[in-house]
């Protein structure tokens, strides 16, 4: 087992190196660079900018250096925990990331829990009552969540939240609870706002989760041991939970890691629509403005989280199924 873990961790490194190169290249792809944003800022205050002196600015930001050097500079800092400096927000990236990442993870994790809380019971029901009206109904409702573009859903839920529940638009807190110390009231206000992004981000994943579970469960339910147990008079619910469900849920473990990038993309769009202070909008701003350190470090961080997530789920699988270790 130990050898397996070591091999896997070692195997992550080339993947991460490749990811970092892709990120760097992709961010450099669009035309323009951070200097253009600086020019823009100067012009907004009536500064006249001349083309001949833009080079000066480029030098200030190290943009006149060769690409390879710029890459090494960035990744070298990243490895030792210095994510660089955001020219867009005029602050260290580390600071920006930590203050936003919390909300992002909170929304993402709660969305994930929401997805499972809805999808697992629905999947079980659909499998047990295959081709019943309930099965069709549930499948349709879940698919509806998948089929509605998340920005549209966010907008509609925002409207409903305001019209029916009086939830203020924009942000994660009502005005009176912004920037006051945590209290029970503040927590409940926060939860009152959190459910909108949670539902919207979570709904997009329920359909596929439910479908996988339903299919896996159906496979198991037709197996001889279940038929035998049923014939022997084991109570249906107990039987279901004890064996088939456990096996049917197995594949989830292997996909937890892969869910993260999907949820992050969804979260970004939803946060833009709802005006939430999470990583998503900042990442998109950084990409648009080619704020290399912010965008690059953000993406790199997410990629690392994903790779670790995949590793953990693999380890979990290996632990539960020894055959994998020796493959």
């Amino acid at each position: 087992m130990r050898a397996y873990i070591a091999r896997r961790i070692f195997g992550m490194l080339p993947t991460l190196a490749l990811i970092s190169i892709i990120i760097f290249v992709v961010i450099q792809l669009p035309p323009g660079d951070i200097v253009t944003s600086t020019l823009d800022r100067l012009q907004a205050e009536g500064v006249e900018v001349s083309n001949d002196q833009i080079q000066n600015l480029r030098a200030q930001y190290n943009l006149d250096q060769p690409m390879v050097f710029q890459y090494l500079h960035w990744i070298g800092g990243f490895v030792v925990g210095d994510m660089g400096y955001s020219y867009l927000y005029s602050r260290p990236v580390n600071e920006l990331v930590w203050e936003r990442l919390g909300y992002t993870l909170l929304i993402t994790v709660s969305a994930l829990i929401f997805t499972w809380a809805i999808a697992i019971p629905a999947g079980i029901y659909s499998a047990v009552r295959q081709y019943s009206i309930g099965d069709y109904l549930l499948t349709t409702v879940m698919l509806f969540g998948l089929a509605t573009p998340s920005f549209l859903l966010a907008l509609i839920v925002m409207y409903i939240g305001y019209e029916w529940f009086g939830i203020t638009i924009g942000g994660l807190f009502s005005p009176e609870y912004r920037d006051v110390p945590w209290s029970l009231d503040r927590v409940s206000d926060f939860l009152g706002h959190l459910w909108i992004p949670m539902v919207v981000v979570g709904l997009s994943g329920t359909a596929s989760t439910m479908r996988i579970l339903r299919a896996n469960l159906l496979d198991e339910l037709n197996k001889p041991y279940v038929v035998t147990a049923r014939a022997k008079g084991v109570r249906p619910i107990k039987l279901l939970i004890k064996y088939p469900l456990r096996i049917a849920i197995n594949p989830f473990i292997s996909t937890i890691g892969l869910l993260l990038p999907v949820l992050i993309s969804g979260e970004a769009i939803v946060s833009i629509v709802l005006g939430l202070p999470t990583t998503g909008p900042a990442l998109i701003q950084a990409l648009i403005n080619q704020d290399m350190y912010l965008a690059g470090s953000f993406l790199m961080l997410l990629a690392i989280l994903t790779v670790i997530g995949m590793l953990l789920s693999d380890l979990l699988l290996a632990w539960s199924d020894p055959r994998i270790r020796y493959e």
Partner: protein
Amino acid sequence: MSDSPLEFDLDEVSPRQLIWQRFKRHRLAMVSIVFLVLIYLMAGFCEFVTPYGTETRNVKAINAPPMTIRFVDEGGQISLRPFVYGYDMHVNADTWMREYTENTNFRYPIYFFSRGERYRLWGLIDTDLHLFTTGHKGYVHFFGTDQLGRDLFSRVFYGARISLSIGIVGVVLTLFLGIFFGGVAGYLGGIVDRLVQRIIEVLQSLPTLPLWMALSAALPVAWSSIGVYFGITIILSLFGWPVLARQVRGRFLALREEDFVISARLLGASRMRIIFKHMLPSFTSHTITTATLAIPGMILGETALSFLGIGLRPPVVSWGVLMQQAQNYQVIVMTPWLLIPGLFVVLTVMAFNFLGDGLRDAIDPYSANREAS
């Protein structure tokens, strides 16, 4: 082989018929396929199906609500020919709202297969024949109009042509990439396999949205609409293939050891021949299912890019472009009919999913419904 009558009966039924029999049992899939055929037909012939072009403006009806189709007029008279009443527009000086009231003095009958605006079907056939118009006077807006007074019904179907074809073209590209990489990795194994595996791992570790964004922003500014269309399609499929490639690879690994492949190899068939003649056909059905389930992702991807302002752009009309223009609070409160394109996206995506489910159940009954992703 056997003389049992039952087996004999089964021999009469071709595998294709068997699949069709099983498919028919999935009601939602049946409804979906009818819906999809219909909407693809309407998108294909959208110039004919719709009464107006994408840029025809009706200044008398800006942000006008959908019209009611009537068979009974004010006086209770029943008319076999459907008709609509014209709108009176009035800008309310207090609310700044354009208020529309039906004016029963203006009754516009709807004529089928009638003459209207000139257009060129597929850029080839010059005609002015439409499925329906109100003739040369009046106007009809089933889905209402947008902020420039353009007929939403017409725009939805012109948009369908773009959005639906992006789905198909994108999936074909994805299939090509997926089968190529997955097949190569699965069949050759070794270093190639490990390399492809790694690329897949890398692509799956990154959120697609930032990658889409960066790539679309890199599309040259001066590209024509067609160029942007293909650019966007390629970007969408660039990140869709890993899922398929993984499945194909798995299949190849399994098939490599199957008797028929081994015997082909022993008989001295070339690798290419083995791959294309023997292995690929054996999972065509599976591939079709996966492709069906991948199309909605493309359609949704297009709308997401448009939402971020980096996808297709006017004058191209796509569902994403239409939704992007309806993406604000004001639309929900005041002109909700502008969300109709969203409804079409939802219905189409759901239909493709049901169709995919049905196909899988029908083609692959034993590995019941297994999602391979």
